[in-house]
């Protein structure tokens, strides 16, 4: 196959393989780790075998010879495990786990054109060969059939379309074989469609849930031969009915493809296309006639239609000489698209506003339709950037395993909500903070097995990593069932480091927040794992740079929960557009709690302090007019936007509140990147620039400048 590609095409194909391999390798790693913990090893071994098999096949296709060599040898070993010819041992898992990293490294090196470390490849191959040679006497036939150079999946140099009729035995589900996985393997061979026949499924009273009543028709167009297809069914073919027929051969592309009389007459100009369609619409389709006559049931007709459609696609594909199931687009292009869509959203908001003032029903209808389409376009565009969080979750299983072994602890990682989707950029930046947090949980949280046992806990500690959507945000939780935080130790350390004074009385939440300050660590011994006091402050900074927040909760002896709250995307936010003089500002809507009026009387009540009384609660406020040095008179009645920051409620005084606004965040560029209180800017529908406020930063600056006091004592509160 690679010989048919030019260099550019080969690079694109190899990049695509890299992405696929990454997923397979993650699956391989996850199954290997499951081998150690799961009681039912059969399923894990099957998954390992399949992952190796797929990587080998695709690797061979794109010329990754070293990858093929390694996976071939590993596959042979795991094939023998499947067949109970060798036992799964810790040694085998320990040899296979590093291969996971090496496969990806070799793929990267091959793509970069760097030389491959053949000595290492041979070493890995030999380590696997040791396992196969141990059983050579009893398994000579198996070994000899797979010895020698790794067989690559050989193409036939042409595409052939097959019809595969697969009727598995009734007990396939009992044997824990999921036919969906077989179809997934087939999909790697080429373009395919699958249709399940459900006519044999009995009614609910008579069905036996563990039996398989379904049989399938699969249409597959592939450059690989019949052997590759048979290979997919190798584990189930004994007890299944499997019929594979060639139904279309790209060499004989014109055979059987003929024009119908109507098409020729239209082409000759003897009849019009519309007239032909009119006549044809009155005619019943052959499938409908056959069903009406009771000659065939509808599911068989639908299966045949799928085959017909697939063949049509094969023809079109052949004519276009390209197969494009997906398109890889550089991220910059995607960002540009998101920016444009964002500007369109802003423009649409302005249009809707103008139209509502005109009171023209026709124009209103068009504007509403435009609004609907823009919203749909925005959602679809944003979805393109979304990735499931499991892409990083799966990495941590290995990390937890290795680290707990290193520290002599027994820790199991449980993940939940891996399908939760987040913006690609957020996911990429989330890796390091999660590594820090999990590392801390294992090092400081989870106790040694003996200590756990003495405390009446199970010897194995559990770290639960979960993700879930809550409105426009994603919550990621890292929970451990370890020792929990030692409040007294935190207090002492904070006093020792001069972060607080001995007499300061802080509540639990305030004490926990000290942990995220630079240089704070309660670990008695500095290890190479954690305890150097760097990490958690960095974690906080990264999370805040993602417009997120971090919270900690803990119970002594029971464990700790760290919650990260993150926005779904960094590109577009819902904002509240406000005005001060002629200047526009956007406050992230997620931070806004309410808006209230501020009269001169309210200001006088504050006795010179920037405080406003909201239903009995005193809330400090910041005048954006002063903060941004905007000249001009302020109106008789101003507006205060009340926001919830990291340190409590704070208000921002503005001239007026314009309304909600979909806001596309634009960077201020390197020159202005360090300006405090501003997280970016956006372009409004009228072309003006509005600054996007960072409410936490602004509150902090105001507090430092003694403009406000976020920690009012009761005495001060009573003054008003």
């Amino acid at each position, binding site marked *: 196959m690679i010989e048919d590609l030019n260099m550019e095409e080969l690079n694109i194909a190899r990049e695509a393989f890299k992405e696929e391999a990454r997923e397979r390798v993650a699956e391989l790693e996850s199954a290997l780790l499951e081998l150690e913990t799961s009681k039912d090893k059969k399923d894990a071994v099957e998954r390992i075998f399949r992952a190796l098999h797929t990587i080998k096949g695709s690797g061979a296709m794109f010329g990754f010879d070293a990858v093929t060599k390694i996976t071939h040898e590993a596959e042979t070993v795991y094939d023998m495990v499947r067949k109970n010819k060798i036992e799964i041992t810790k040694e085998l898992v320990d040899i296979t786990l590093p291969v996971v990293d090496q496969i990806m490294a070799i793929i990267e090196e091959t793509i970069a054109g760097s030389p491959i470390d053949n000595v290492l490849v041979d070493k890995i191959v030999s380590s696997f060969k040791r396992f196969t040679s141990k059983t050579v006497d009893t398994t000579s036939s198996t070994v000899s059939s797979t010895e020698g150079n790794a067989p690559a999946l050989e193409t036939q140099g042409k595409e052939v379309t097959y019809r595969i009729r697969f009727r598995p035995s009734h007990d396939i589900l009992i044997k824990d074989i999921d036919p969906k996985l077989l179809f997934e393997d087939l999909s790697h061979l080429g373009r395919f469609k699958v249709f399940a026949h459900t006519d044999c499924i009995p009614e609910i009273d008579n069905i036996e*849930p563990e039996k398989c009543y379904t049989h399938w028709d699969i249409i597959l167009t592939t450059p690989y031969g019949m052997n590759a297809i048979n290979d997919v069914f190798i584990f189930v073919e004994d007890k299944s009915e499997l019929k594979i027929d060639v139904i279309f051969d790209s060499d004989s592309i014109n055979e059987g493809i003929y024009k119908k009389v109507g098409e020729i007459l239209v082409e000759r100009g003897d009849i019009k296309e519309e007239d032909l369609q009119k006549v044809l619409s009155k005619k019943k389709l052959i499938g409908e006639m056959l069903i009406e006559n009771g000659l065939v049931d509808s599911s068989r007709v639908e299966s045949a239609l799928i085959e017909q459609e697939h063949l049509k696609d094969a023809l079109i594909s052949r004519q276009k000489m390209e197969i494009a199931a997906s398109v890889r687009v550089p991220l910059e292009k995607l960002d540009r698209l998101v920016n444009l869509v964002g500007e369109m959203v802003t423009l649409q908001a302005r249009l809707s506003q103008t139209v509502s003032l005109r009171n023209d029903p026709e124009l209103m209808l068009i504007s509403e339709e435009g609004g609907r389409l823009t919203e749909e376009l925005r959602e679809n565009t944003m979805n393109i950037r979304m990735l499931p969080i499991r892409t990083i979750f799966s990495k941590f299983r290995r990390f937890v395993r290795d680290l707990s072994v290193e520290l002599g602890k027994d820790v199991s990682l449980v993940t939940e909500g891996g399908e939760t989707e987040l913006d690609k950029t957020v996911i990429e930046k989330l890796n390091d903070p999660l590594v820090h947090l999990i590392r801390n949980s294992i090092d400081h949280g989870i106790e040694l097995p003996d200590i756990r046992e003495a405390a009446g806990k199970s010897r194995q500690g559990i770290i639960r990593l979960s993700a879930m959507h809550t409105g426009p945000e994603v919550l990621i939780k890292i929970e451990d069932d370890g020792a929990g935080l030692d409040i007294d130790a935190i207090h002492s350390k904070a006093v020792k480091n001069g972060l607080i004074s001995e007499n300061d009385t802080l509540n639990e939440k305030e004490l926990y927040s000290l942990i995220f300050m630079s240089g704070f660590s309660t670990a008695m011994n500095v290890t190479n794992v954690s305890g150097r006091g760097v990490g958690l402050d960095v974690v906080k900074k990264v999370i805040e740079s993602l417009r997120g927040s971090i919270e900690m909760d803990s119970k002594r002896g029971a464990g700790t929960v760290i919650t990260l709250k993150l926005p779904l995307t960094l590109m577009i936010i819902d904002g509240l557009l406000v005005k001060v003089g002629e200047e526009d500002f956007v406050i992230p809507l997620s931070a806004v709690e309410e808006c209230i009026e501020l009269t001169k009387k309210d200001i006088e009540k504050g006795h010179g302090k920037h405080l406003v009384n909201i239903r009995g609660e005193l809330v400090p406020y910041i005048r954006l007019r002063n903060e941004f040095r905007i000249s001009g008179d302020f109106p008789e009645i101003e507006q205060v936007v009340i926001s919830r920051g990291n340190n409590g409620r704070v208000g921002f005084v503005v001239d007026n509140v314009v309304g909600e606004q979909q806001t596309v965040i634009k960077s201020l560029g390197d020159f202005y990147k360090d300006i405090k209180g501003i997280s970016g800017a956006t372009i409004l529908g009228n072309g003006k620039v509005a600054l996007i406020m960072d409410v936490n930063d602004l509150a902090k600056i105001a507090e430092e400048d003694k403009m406000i006091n976020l920690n009012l004592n009761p005495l001060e509160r009573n003054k008003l």
Partner: protein
Amino acid sequence: MKFKVDNSKERRLLTVEGMLTAQHAPEFKAILIEALKEANSIELNLEKVTEVDIACLQLICAAHKTSVKIKKSLNILENCSDIFKRGVKAAGYARKRGCININGDNKCLLVVALSKL
């Protein structure tokens, strides 16, 4: 997997959360049988299904066949999870028309549920 049943004589809402897979199939079957016996209209809420396999797809199909035969209504709410939809498609259960031999009106439970697939 968690099942939640909202009862009324006329309409019964079965909410399934988590894995709709072989290990839970006997329980799922029992719930479907009971619902078909007691209510005239049954709705399946599969919004929070995190996995689906052939065993449970067969049960849904079987329940639908029974419902048509006893002239009761069984529907899947359109909010079913993407994982469920993808599972149906991967298993080859996605289709454009139903099994006419049984219901005559050319409708299939999965046709309706997966209209947005």
